[in-house]
């Protein structure tokens, strides 16, 4: 994916401008920055939900603004930050909705689509929940259901908007593990997060959106440093290492001090 000169405004207020980014196939790119820096907005522009005021987003050389909604949904999957369930659909029914971009207006999922939905559930490890109403599973499991739905779309790239924001520690770890496994399988993902610790879990690249509009890109280990974090968040932050309790290597952790 190539993003060139991306700029966005809400009315008169400029959110970001002049953003250039490359996203390579099979990588997990983390996008960091303080609240209000525009990372969610940028992600929604990349996904096509919002329209950039300037700049282009190209996926495999194709400008995504030239794609119709169905074509775009077949290439780009989006995992939203907030989801309020209304009806108690079964988990499998929800994940099957991910096949919508591949079906016409009057289309209905075929047995092949249902099989793909079950595969997606299996990939995130919750196939055993498939016949439960998705209103009756935990918040973390619901997050995984929606992730499975995005997988069922079979997109070229998945955009995750602060996937960990409403989860407790245990569910955060579950999500991180699922995302990590997908990354290891070569799924291309862009993930925004307000917590740099999430980005430290993955070996790939990170983008830090700093106040003032500058953007720093590089390997997560190079971008997430004391100096960069402190200047981005405006408070003293240190990256510390501590040995793992089981003796296998170190835990790397960011913390304000």
């Amino acid at each position, binding site marked *: 994916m190539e993003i060139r000169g991306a700029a966005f405004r809400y009315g008169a207020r400029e959110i970001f401008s002049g953003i250039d980014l490359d996203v390579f196939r099979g990588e997990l790119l983390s996008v960091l920055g303080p609240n209000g820096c525009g990372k969610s907005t940028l992600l929604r522009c990349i996904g096509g939900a919002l329209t950039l005021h300037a700049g282009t987003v190209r996926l495999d050389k194709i400008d995504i603004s030239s794609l119709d909604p169905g074509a775009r949904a077949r290439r780009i999957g989006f995992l939203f930050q907030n989801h309020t369930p209304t009806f108690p659909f079964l988990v499998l029914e929800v994940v099957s909705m991910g096949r919508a971009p591949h079906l016409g207006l009057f289309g*209905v999922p075929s047995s092949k689509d249902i099989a793909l939905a079950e595969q997606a559930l299996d990939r995130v490890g919750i196939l055993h929940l498939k016949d439960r109403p998705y209103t009756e599973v935990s918040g973390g499991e619901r997050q995984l259901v929606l992730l499975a739905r995005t997988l069922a779309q079979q997109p070229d790239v998945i955009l995750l908007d602060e996937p960990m924001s409403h989860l407790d520690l245990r569910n955060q770890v579950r999500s991180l593990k699922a995302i990590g496994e997908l990354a290891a399988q070569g799924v291309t993902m862009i993930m925004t997060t307000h917590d740099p610790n999430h980005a430290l879990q993955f070996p790939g690249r990170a983008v830090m959106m700093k106040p003032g509009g500058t953007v720093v890109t590089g390997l997560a280990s190079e971008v997430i440093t004391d100096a960069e974090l402190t200047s981005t968040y405006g408070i003293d932050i240190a990256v510390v290492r501590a040995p793992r309790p089981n003796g296998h290597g170190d835990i790397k952790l960011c913390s304000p001090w």
Partner: protein
Amino acid sequence: MTRPRCTVFLILLPPALLYASLFVGRFAVSPIDVARILFAQIFPIAHDWPKSVETIVLQIRLPRALMAMCVGAGLSISGAAYQGMFRNPLVSTDILGVTAASGFGAAVALLLSANALGLQLTAFAFGLAGVALTYRLARIYQTTPVLMLVLSGVVVAAFFSALLSGAKYVADPESRLPAITYWLLGSLNAASIKGLAMALPPIILGSLGLLLVRWKLNVLAMGDEEARSLGVETERLKGIVIVCTTLITAAAVSVCGMVGWVGLVIPHVGRMLVGPNHRLLLPATLSIGASYLLFIDDIARTATAGEIPLGILTAIIGAPFFAYLLRRTSATWH
């Protein structure tokens, strides 16, 4: 109830009730006679029943029963579609103002002494116009957000309600006003074959349209933004749902007046039986709605010497029933 048993029940219930409705009534007809009269339409059998009985069964009860089933089915599938589209199980078919506008149209027709068919047409036309007005009001920047639709519906319904009050005010209290009042209470006693022929096409067309898109409604029920991220053209889908439900509801109101609580309650019953998946829910509501309104209409015309207006019965039965449903399913909603 298991899925296959449920399906069989829902398929058999409407025809069974239809058959029962033909021999139930103040003028008793035996079930055997009804069966033979029906058969005689297709196979040659000797006609050994009085002509009056045949008239009652075929000209009076059959059109009325079919009308009740079509209105019940149509209002129910519309209610289910709206509840999915607005992501709110408390939505009814009146939300965009079609009932209020239709009611006013009927009042105008009655003031002008139109005949039954003219009345039907005027009510239907006003119903469509009311929703068109709501839709136009709710349009912002090429989209029609759900909140704007609801607010515009409130405005348009209130406006036509006010106009309706105006019509009642100027109506002659000896003849027109009672006619308007009685019509608004809802009744199927004017059901005729001609009326059925006029009301049937929009109801069938609308229901077919909704059935075709019923799976996509599941995706729409996830929210506009999520549905769009899944490639659904939400504005087009919403437009289809609104057009179909308005065709159905305007036709329904034009033949039987203001019959409420059907589009609101039946989808809940449907969800209790088959779940919220619209793929199953919408066909189920057709069957349940048809049976429900047919049953209520049978009560309406047989319970007392006079006829109880349908709208009163659906409210008296529907509201407490809805309260019961709310208590039972309160755990499911957030």
